[in-house]
């Protein structure tokens, strides 16, 4: 399926993963964190985001279209790799494989997450604290959402490392190593923020 345009599509895929999808994820997790301040704080924040001017335009052009391109092209990339961590058990090779596994898992998780929230809203349901609290009455859903959040923060943190290499910003092994530590820190911080928000609904 390789074509002449592959270079531009791959670079676009790398860019969209950070801007806007990665930034949106960070913002989403921060807004979710209002749940730790109680139902009212969360509902206020949720109402603010849900009633932004031009919200449909923002949703489509900042979230859905970039996310769908990144997701579907990413699945194609994931399935063209022939993983070989048994032969080469290095840190980077594991990251390479985990980036693909989390990516495919996130397509499933995000599809389910959008169905459960945004599509239900379009069908007339109210997206608020209670909706999430109801979802989390099922312990399986708590586990599923925690797995989803951690997969997303991992994919973003490791994707940030890949982005910097792909665009030729970090070249030397030293700079790549330092960014590895930065990406680990980003992963831990975003994961804590995300998981705390989930547990606030329980």
């Amino acid at each position, binding site marked *: 399926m*390789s074509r002449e345009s592959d270079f531009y599509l791959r670079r676009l895929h790398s860019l969209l993963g950070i801007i806007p999808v990665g930034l949106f994820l960070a913002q989403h997790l921060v807004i979710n964190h209002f749940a730790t301040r109680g139902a009212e704080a969360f509902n206020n924040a949720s109402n603010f985001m849900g009633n932004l001017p031009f919200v449909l335009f923002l949703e489509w052009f900042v979230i859905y279209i970039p996310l769908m391109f990144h997701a579907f092209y990413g699945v194609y990339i994931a399935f063209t*790799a022939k993983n070989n961590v048994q032969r*080469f058990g290095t840190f980077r090779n594991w990251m390479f494989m985990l980036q693909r596994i989390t990516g495919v898992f996130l397509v499933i998780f995000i599809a389910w997450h959008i169905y459960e929230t945004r599509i239900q809203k379009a069908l007339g349901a109210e997206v608020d604290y209670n909706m999430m609290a109801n979802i989390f009455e099922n312990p399986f859903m708590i586990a599923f959402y925690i797995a989803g959040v951690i997969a997303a923060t991992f994919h973003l943190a490791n994707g940030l490392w890949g982005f910097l290499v792909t*665009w030729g910003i*970090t070249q030397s092994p030293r700079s*790549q190593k330092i960014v590895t530590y930065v990406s680990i820190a980003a992963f831990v911080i975003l994961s804590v923020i995300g998981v705390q928000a989930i547990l606030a609904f329980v």
Partner: protein
Amino acid sequence: MSEQNTAVQEREQQTAQKTVRFEILRQDTAESTPYWEKFELEYRPNMNVISALMEIRRNPVNADGEKTTPVNWDMNCLEEVCGACSMVINGRPRQSCTALVDQFTQPIRLEPMKTFPVVRDLIVDREFMFDSLKKIKAWVPIDGTYDLGEGPRMPERKRQWAYELSKCMTCGVCLEACPNVNDKTDFIGPALISQVRLFNTHPTGAMNKDERLATIMADGGITECGNSQNCVVACPKGIPLTTSIAAMNRATSVQLFKNFFGSDHMVD
């Protein structure tokens, strides 16, 4: 004199009972199904995989004592500079000429580098790499319709550094190690990306650098890299392949903007 004899005798006694076990993935023709065959050889000090294969060729009898066909393999320089004898030894691609038997756990498993088409037994066809070298114009053009004179001088420190990149012997080990070089992609492989960097570094070679960048900004080019960084671990010559790839990522990023926002002069 007698002391020396004793030492030799002792060593012979020590190695007399010792054997080396091999498991070799064999394939009779390019199309036939591969199968494993076991061999057991007498141990000799300082034995390497090639000398063991020569031993099998001399006496092609497998571990079950049955007569078999000699194992086919490729070799040339026997000092790890040509790349011809590359194969997968105990799961890792490398040159078999420098693979000392003492350094491996037994049985030593030999397989061809299946990323490439297998010709017979351990022989593969690496023509894909040689074709890719032509694609990226891995040379410095010096011919004109008249005497072009001397080219620009290369700074000595740059030459010393570029020499490291020029150690690439197109052996194919990095392609075998790369998870993104397979039959589902057209990725030309880490070695070739590094060769673009080498020839774009050369002051005369740099006169065609946009043409080389254009080839790695197309089908099977640099964006097929997924940064697993296996190549730099596997490279027998210690070439900084991942640094080369990142450097070419930067060069293609710059070229991308040049191409889009337009310049009628692509060379510099």
